[in-house]
Structure formats: C-alpha cells, structure tokens
C-alpha cells in the first residue's frame, strides 16, 4: 500500500528537573492513504506526544527527539525547520484537539479564526474566505452558519465547538487529519455525531486519519487499523477486526474488557485495569506491562519481549506470543 505517513523508531523524551521522561520509546507504524489508524491506550501512555511530534507542536525544550524518522510522503519531517513546518501544518497535516472548550481563541470570532486559517494557505480575499468559512461550517453541519461565523466561542456548545475545530482542520484539504481524543470531553450522544461527521468528511475528501482515544469502544466502526500503546511503546498492532476478535496481548485483552457494553447488566461493574502504568523516568527493563499482568512469567521482568508477527498485519510484543512459549 502507498503510505502517507511512515514513523520509524521514534523516541521522544522530556528533560525535566527530576530527569529524563521517556514519553515515547521506539515506536514504528505506518498510515496508508485514506486509511484510519486508531491509537489506543490509557492516559499518559504517550499518545498525545506521538501526535504532537508529527505536527512538531511539542514545547522544545523540554521535549526533544531522541531518535527516529517521521516520513511524510517519503520526506522526513524532523529534518524540517520551524519555518518549513508552517507550510505542512494545516495544508497537509492538521489536527483536532481533545478539549474543544479551550482550543478556540476566546476573544476572536469563530469566522475570523477560520478565515485566518484559509488565508494562510489560499490567496483569497477576506470576503471569499468568509464565504468559504461558511461552507466549511455547513460541511460539519453547524446550523445557521451565516449567523454563527459572527459569534464567539463561548456562544457555542462543546459539540459545536468541536465541529468548528474539524472545519478549521479541513480548510485546506489536508491529506492527514490527526484527531487527539476528539470526543473525550463530550457527551456520549455528541461523541457519536462527531465521529459520524469525521467519517463523512473522510468519504468526501479522502484524507487519512489518525484517531487517538483511550476508549477502544469508539474505534470499532471508525478505524481500519489499531495500535495499542502502553508506557510509550506500541504493544500490539493489527487490523481492527483482529484486535477485537483475536487480541493477543494481555493489555489489549484488559482494555477490551474495560469497554462498556450495551448488553452489560446495570450493576455489573466495569473492569478497569488494576494498578498504574510504570514510571517513565526509569522505564522497566523487561515488559512494560509486567507489574499489572496476571500472566507474567519470570522472563518478563528482565527481558523486553520483541514483536511477534502473527500474520502480515497483526503483531504483538509479549513473551506469551513467542513461538517457544506454547504453554498458553
């Protein structure tokens, strides 16, 4: 497949007063054209750092790239200067953030914020840009867009603001949209609408999507491929169907158990995963999930499991999946 994004051996750390935080550790993945790739994992596992690395929106310092490449259409984005990155942002890769309540400028009209994005990449007059802004709001199904462009963010609900954010992200028809927990801050019903809109737009415009979430429940009908992240690493990768029907990594299995289901009895409590992820100041030598894993073996503590390829698309990092561990 023709890949639009190819992340290779990316490691990102933060230099802090207490030492180095290894937020992302040697991750590799690809995103194909028109493909939707979900990155799933508990909070703090490095999803946002990964996303912001691609856009180069991390505060540097403290953040720094330790190693790796981010190939976008074959070109390493990490080699670009700040100025050169400005051309990539929004026009080729754009981003939607987690909290729609804080990600729009509170003192600027919605219309002006969209117009600004349009005019940066297209040579349009203010009037034409405003027309285009209204069209963009129509695209994300904001009612009464002519009136809405002249309003301020505080006059919008959370769901409406997230639509505006998507409109803003789509103004110059980017080839890749990164949505960092776009629905986490929203009500369940609104969540479904936002995801629906993203899917619609993808059908119309044909961009690739990286959908980041901590909720495996929402990715089922959205994504083609799922990456399961934990403590800065990818622990399992597979087609969505493979991850759902045939999860291989104990962490993935736990994540799936923690997804709320409609058929669940009222009083049946959700399995949230016990324990907390490891400290990223001194990442574990062996398997990152060791502390919380009920199947842990002796070897897991001191030796990092490598990826085992189950088939062409499905792989995971767990000693249990190792060909020599046939016990289970």
């Amino acid at each position, binding site marked *: 497949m023709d890949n639009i994004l190819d992340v290779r051996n990316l490691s990102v750390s933060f230099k802090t007063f207490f030492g180095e935080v290894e937020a992302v550790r040697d991750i590799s993945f690809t995103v194909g054209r028109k493909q939707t790739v979900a990155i799933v994992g508990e909070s703090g596992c490095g999803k946002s750092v990964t996303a912001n690395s691609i*856009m180069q*929106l991390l505060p540097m310092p403290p953040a720094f790239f330790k190693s790796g490449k981010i190939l976008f259409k074959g070109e390493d984005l990490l080699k670009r200067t*700040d*100025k050169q990155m*400005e*051309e*990539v*942002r*929004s*026009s080729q890769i*754009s*981003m939607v*953030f987690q*909290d729609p309540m*804080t*990600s*729009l*400028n*509170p*003192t*600027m009209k919605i219309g002006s914020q969209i117009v*600004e*994005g349009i005019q*940066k*990449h297209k040579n349009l007059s203010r009037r034409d840009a405003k027309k285009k802004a209204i069209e963009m709001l129509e695209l994300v199904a904001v009612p009464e867009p002519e009136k809405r462009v002249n309003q*301020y963010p*505080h006059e919008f609900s959370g769901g409406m603001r997230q639509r505006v*954010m998507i409109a*803003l*992200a789509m103004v110059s028809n980017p080839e890749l949209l990164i949505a960092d927990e776009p629905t986490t801050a929203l009500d369940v019903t609104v969540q479904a609408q936002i995801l629906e809109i993203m899917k619609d737009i993808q059908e119309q415009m044909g961009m690739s999507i990286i959908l980041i979430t901590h909720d495996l429940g929402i990715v089922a009908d959205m994504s083609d491929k799922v990456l399961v992240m934990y403590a800065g690493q990818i622990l399992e990768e597979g087609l969505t169907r493979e991850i759902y029907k045939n999860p291989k990594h104990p962490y993935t299995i736990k994540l799936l158990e923690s997804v709320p289901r409609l058929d669940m009895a009222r009083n049946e409590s959700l399995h949230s995963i016990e324990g907390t992820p490891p400290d990223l100041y001194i990442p574990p030598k062996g398997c990152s999930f060791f502390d919380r894993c009920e199947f842990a073996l002796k070897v897991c503590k001191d030796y990092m499991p490598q990826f085992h390829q189950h088939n062409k698309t499905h792989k995971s990092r767990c000693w249990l999946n190792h060909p020599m561990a046939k016990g289970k």
Partner: protein
Amino acid sequence: MKKYLLKRFFMSIITLWAIVTITFFLMHSVPGNPFAKEGKMPPTVYQNLQRKYGLDKPKSEQYVIYLKNLLRGDFGDSMKSRVETVNDMIERGFPISAYLGVEALLIALVFGPVLGALAALFQNKVPDYISMIIAIIGISVPSFIMGTVFIQFIAKNVSWIPIGGWGEFRHTILPAIALSLMPLAYIARLMRSSMLEVLGQDYIKTAKSKGLSKSTVILKHAVRNAILPIVSVLGTLISNLLVGSFVIEKIFGIPGLGAFFVNSIVSRDYTLIMGTTIFYSIILIIMLLLVDISYVLIDPRIRLTKEGR
C-alpha cells in the same frame, strides 16, 4: 448598556456626595484654620475674614451653602489667593497635570506590556532578567526618590534636560518617566505572567496547527488575550498615578493641580482643599467608568446582562 450607564451615573453621584460630605467635616475637625498662621492679626480683621468666608456660621449651615454653590459648579473663592477663585486655579493647573499624567500613562502602557511580553517570550533569558530588574526598581522605589535621583544624575549632567519647571516638552521627560515607572513595572510583571499562561493555552496550539507564523501567533493570539488582565487593573493604576503626581509636581516644580492640592492642605485653604478633592474624585470616577466600559468592549465573554444591554 444604556441602563448600566445610567446606574453607574447615579452611583457616581452618590459616591461624590459622600466624598464631599466626609471631606468637608473631616477638614473642619482638624485643628487650625486658614488664617491661624498669618501672624498676629487684629481681632477685628480676623472676625471680618471669618465673616467674609462664612466661617462664623454653624458648620451645618456652611455645609448647605457649600453644596448649593457646588451644584452650580462654583467651588468658591480661595482663602489664600486674593486674585484667583478655586475654579480659576483648577482651570490653570489641570491641563498641566493632565498632560503629565497622560504622558506617564502612555509610557507605562506602551513599555509595560512590551517588556512583559518579551520577558515571557525569553523566559529565564536576558530580556527576562532586565525586565525583572526594572520591575523591582519600579515597584519598590517610591516615585519621589526616583524623581530626586533623576534630577541628581540626569538633569544635572545632560544640558538640554531641565531640572524642573514647565513649558516645553523637554520639561516633561523626567517627571513623566518617574511617574510612569511604578505602573510600568506593575504592568510588565502582570503581562509576563499573563503571557506565560496564555502561551500554554490550547488555542495557541490550535493557532500554530493552522500553520500561522510565529509572529502572528504571538501578536494576534497571545498578546491580545494576555493584555486583558492589564485592562482590569488600569483603574487602580490610574488612581496611583494621580497620587504620585502630587509629589512629582512638587519635586519638579510643576505648576499643576497637584501642587495646588498639596499647598492647600498645608495652608488649610478650605475651599481649595474641597475643590481639588472633588475635582480629582470626578476625574477618577470618569476614568474608572471608561476602564470598565473598555473592558466590556474588548472581552466578548463579559457582556452586560441581556436586559442591561
């Protein structure tokens, strides 16, 4: 908005009335009177003077008479100056004070935010330290010491900068800077912290993700939001500036209203004390109102209630 303004107007009138009343009775309760210092004066002359200014009448009657005159905009005759009424003095002194005050305010409003923004953008680097030093000096050194230091080290060495007096622009430079330092320093510190906070906000990341250049992100998105808290303290800063101007005018020998005010207290010139106090109060009340209105205008989130609009 109309209703709000009307409400503010009535509140202001009541505030003003309270100031007039309190000042009037406080002033009269302080020992001494305008003519006590003028050496030995024959009792008949003293009594004539008392009668001329109505000081022989009971306090309450004097108060009513004063209020009546005030309603006509008449601050009365000065008890010291034989040639000028209080209105004359205000008319003469106010333009000078206003010029100085506005110049100082402009200096503070231009350099304060710039210094603060630079400090935030270069956090823990040279510009940050420079702004920190200026801020510490500005906030901790009173303006009268600043003024004296300026005279000693600048005016005495630079030939075209006068030691004091009034008339040309060069006369205004040192007093205006001395007066502006405190608000400037305060604004710079406030701007620094507000800017640092704004730079960490999500919408700045959104602006960057739109592909906007660094300068656009900073000027259009960061500075505009970071400046809001400054507008809200502007009222306090302006009143501090007013108080500071009394001393600065005295030090630099500027014939402004502040000098009249200070002199009037020393000499117990009752009518001049009342006149200048009331006049300053009116100016301050108007300034505070303007600040509030401008705050409403620049921050769309703060809209007066629907009925009030």
